[in-house]
């Protein structure tokens, strides 16, 4: 992974973007970052930091006041929007408000209809992607009979069926119960296992950010920090000052350091236990 990072091309480039919902009140104040192809990037930030706005700008649902957004090397504007939209899928927060049709099967078909896919071929596509998110046995179900997690999985299947290169998850797990959250996180993780897809996840979940390739931290409409999770979470004071939490393993490591026990920063609980064993053996 380390080897090919940097030589891979940027699939999303955000260059000095400004955006305002109301005049004289910029929600984004000159944000720039890039996302490399095939990576799993998380965007963190407290409420109102502008992270959902970024998602809507990248997917062309909002238009930036100034600045430039490039998707797969193509500048996003009114002319390119339709071709860019085919490269990009987005899964929103509210499971109910993105379920358009009256059954799972027809909801997955919705995007295919929009892209004028031959109806003869739709069933095979629908079944393939429903199986991928483990919803194949629920194809005829209505949204009222599905859990939040299941509806989100249908939304993911609907996006996947359109074969995008990039999928944005805009707080896709935040309205789900713990079980639903785990299901969706696992589904996203599995999707990314072959690294063919670029995933951008806008989230509050620090642990998810820790397991991603890149972290982008926004604060008050500006880029606060970006980089690998290990580097980002080293800045305990800074991260906590802008209203975010740091991962549990990092907290333990910091607390131990304050007591004079030095251990390496690690992401996984198992590695943390290992590190603690090692340091106790040294003493």
């Amino acid at each position, binding site marked *: 992974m380390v080897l090919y990072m940097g030589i891979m091309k940027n699939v999303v480039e955000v260059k000095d973007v400004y955006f305002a919902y109301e005049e004289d009140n910029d929600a984004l104040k000159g944000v720039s970052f890039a996302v490399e192809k095939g990576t799993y990037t998380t965007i963190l930030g407290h409420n109102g930091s502008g992270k959902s706005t970024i998602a*809507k700008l990248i*997917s062309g*649902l909002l238009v930036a006041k100034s600045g430039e957004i490039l998707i797969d090397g193509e500048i996003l504007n009114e002319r390119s929007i*339709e071709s860019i*939209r*085919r490269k990009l*899928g*987005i899964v*929103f927060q*509210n499971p*109910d*408000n*993105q*379920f*358009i*049709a*009256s059954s799972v*099967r*027809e909801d997955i*078909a*919705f*995007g*295919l*209809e*929009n*892209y*004028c*896919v*031959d*109806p003869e071929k*739709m069933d095979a596509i629908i079944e393939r992607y429903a199986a991928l998110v483990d919803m194949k046995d629920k194809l005829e179900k*209505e*949204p*009222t009979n599905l859990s939040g997690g299941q509806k989100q999985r249908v939304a993911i299947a*609907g*996006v996947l069926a*359109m074969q995008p290169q990039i999928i944005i998850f805009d707080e896709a797990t935040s309205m789900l119960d713990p079980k639903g959250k785990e299901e969706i996180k696992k589904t996203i993780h599995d999707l990314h296992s072959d690294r063919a897809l670029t995933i951008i996840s806008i989230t509050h979940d620090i642990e998810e950010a820790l397991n991603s390739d890149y972290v982008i931290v926004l604060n008050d409409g500006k880029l606060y920090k970006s980089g690998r999770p290990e580097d980002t979470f080293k800045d305990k004071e800074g991260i906590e000052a802008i209203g975010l939490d740091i991962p549990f393993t990092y907290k333990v490591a910091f607390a131990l350091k304050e007591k004079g026990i030095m251990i390496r920063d690690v992401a996984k609980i198992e590695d943390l236990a290992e590190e603690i064993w090692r340091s106790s053996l040294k003493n």
Partner: protein
Amino acid sequence: MNNIVFGKYIPLDTPIHRLDPRAKILAMLVMLVAIFIPAGWTGYVVLALAISFVVKVSKIKFKVIIRAFRPLIFMMCFLLVVNILSVKQGQLLVDIGFVKIYADAIFNTLYIIIRLFLMIMLTTILTMMTKPLDLTLGIEYLLGPFKRIGVPAHEIAMMISIALRFIPTIIEETIRIMNSQKSRGVDFEEGKLKEKITAVVSLVVPLFSVSLQRADELANAMEARGYVPDAQRTRYRRLHYVRRDYILLVGAILILLAMIALALFL
């Protein structure tokens, strides 16, 4: 909530269910015209037999259809009174001073009641035996030829199907808001009219605000998945006429012709 929705779809697998929605809509329209042709009692017997046959095949209980008819009883009594007061033809049946009841008044009312009853039976069969979405699709197909003169057939169908899809969601939302208002002390059941209105406002305002937000998010989701209202798109579900659909249509047209014949020659 179930008994409020009149003519609610009943998921069964009968020959009527399997018919093409377009054929069902068209046959219903033809039959409605037939009902309004004044073909006398013979005509009504023919129609009643035909519709009863459909009801029999559709496996709906007559009781269910009678129930759909119940809210109209008041209206029928009213009709009867109006007819008695206004129609002064035919044989005099009853004469108690200022009230004179003529035979035609009774017959006129009976005609109207029979017509209404047959109409309700027809429409109930249609909505009970056809999935709301199939109905929508049927309407879209049937309105297709009118696209040229500016009828937005696809948009109408999309609106109806989204409305149908969100009915249960909005009902859930309503119950949730009612409960949260109740927990804050709003009384929906009792109180004076003014208090009741205030209570309903406390329900309607948040419901509107949430629904508008929902609409906004739904529009975003549709746009993000490549939906452009007036653009060309394919349809996953397509309709095909098969033999039974033609049989239904031919049957309906034959009945209409029979009614016209009866009206002309009897």
